[in-house]
């Protein structure tokens, strides 16, 4: 007597790529705007980036319904935090909350691949990268999603990340200027779009710094 199997999957991969780069006094968070299913494009104009707090932006790819649910949970937890503490959550605090939220569903995970970007309490750029069940670390830069394998080696080369084994630990935060980092991100997406069918249409870029937040959109190949 074999166990009967579902003929539907509760998961789907709606594709897309997310990138974040931390600078000395800025953070760049970017994601493409294509939403797909199977070999079809559902929409070319869909934002994968969510503002969780003044200084915390999350970019997530994977299963869109789970991503949206995750964004809702975190946003509402942040609202409660503000009511209780009368201040915004810091980026490292939000990073921990995201990890805990993901692990909470360890046995029916959010199929979401997240990059959290923002400014820490010193105003330095910080990027946190996650897997689907909440394992995370603070890094100088990260890519997640369908184009991550194409982008990460390029970033490793261009940002010359120090070995994590070095002592004393060397910070991976890039010495590049904000304009150079934004340009690098655009190059990353242009390249990933060439070879990854799930990446394209356009890229939404959020730049966070001491002066505030600004957004840029760059068109990508639509094929």
């Amino acid at each position: 007597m074999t166990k009967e199997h579902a003929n539907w999957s509760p998961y789907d991969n709606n594709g897309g790529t997310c990138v974040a780069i931390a600078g000395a006094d800025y953070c760049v968070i970017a994601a493409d705007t294509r939403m797909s299913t199977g070999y079809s494009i559902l929409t070319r104009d869909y934002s994968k980036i969510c503002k969780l707090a003044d200084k915390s932006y999350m970019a997530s790819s994977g299963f869109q319904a789970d991503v949206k649910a995750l964004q809702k949970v975190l946003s509402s937890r942040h609202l409660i935090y503000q009511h209780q503490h009368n201040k915004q959550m810091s980026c490292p605090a939000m990073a921990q909350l995201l990890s805990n939220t993901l692990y909470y569903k360890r046995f029916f995970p959010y199929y979401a691949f997240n990059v959290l970007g923002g400014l820490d309490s010193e105003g330095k750029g910080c990027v946190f990268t996650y897997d689907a069940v909440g394992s995370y670390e603070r890094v100088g830069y990260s890519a997640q999603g369908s184009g991550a394998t194409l982008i990460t080696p390029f970033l490793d080369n261009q940002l010359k990340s120090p070995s994590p084994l070095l002592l004393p630990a060397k910070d991976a935060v890039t010495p590049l200027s904000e304009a150079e980092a934004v340009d690098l991100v655009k190059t990353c997406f242009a390249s990933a779009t060439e070879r990854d069918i799930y990446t394209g249409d356009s890229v939404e870029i959020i730049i966070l710094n001491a002066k505030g937040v600004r957004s840029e959109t760059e068109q990508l190949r639509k094929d």
Partner: protein
Amino acid sequence: MVSSQNENRLLSSEGDSQRTQYPYVTGTSVIGIKYKDGILMAADMGGSYGSTIRYKSVERLKQVGKHSLIGASGEISDFQEILRYLDELILHDNMWDDGNSLGPKEVHNYLTRVMYNRRNKFDPLWNSLILGGVKNGKKYLGSVSMIGVHFEDDHVATGFGNHLARPILREEWREDLTFEEGVKLLEKCMRNLLYRDRSAVNKLQIAKITEEGLTISQPYSLKTFWNFAAFQNPTVGAEGSW
């Protein structure tokens, strides 16, 4: 005592679990577009039972409250359940008697939550829904799938419509389509589906929703063209084949 459950295994198709289902009576594609004055939606009236076209007068486009229109593909009984949920939603909204009424964006969000929550319980409503409407001059058109994937766009479609209709709409859709142009565009898509989707039937309705209100057309049929040369003498050049 032998469990009669096990003996009936061969007869029942899903044991005693209320989870994982198969769709039985299904509707095929729905297409929706924004046009100058509001939203246009089209769906045929077929209800298939596997490969049989069992029902030919199924209304798959329905009004929701004052400002919205829903179109459904997938399991028809689940769509009827959704209509019951929406009925209660609208009723409670009206009973507040505060002059406010749920707009299409709100109804779309509600449907997304319902579909996602059922997916989380491994007991999905087997539908792909399209929700369109106009409120306070703002047009809205969104889609929700059976597992809760949702988005809004200028044109949406379910099922086969994604493969056959969306490409046409990407080429020919414009922001300022008139009603006549919009209907022509939808009919072009529906004709394409009629030719190529085996579960499509040639009896459709088109619904229009604007700030003023909603109208769902009487059912009608599309003219089709089969007079292609290759269909006339199909075995010419290869006698003996069919």
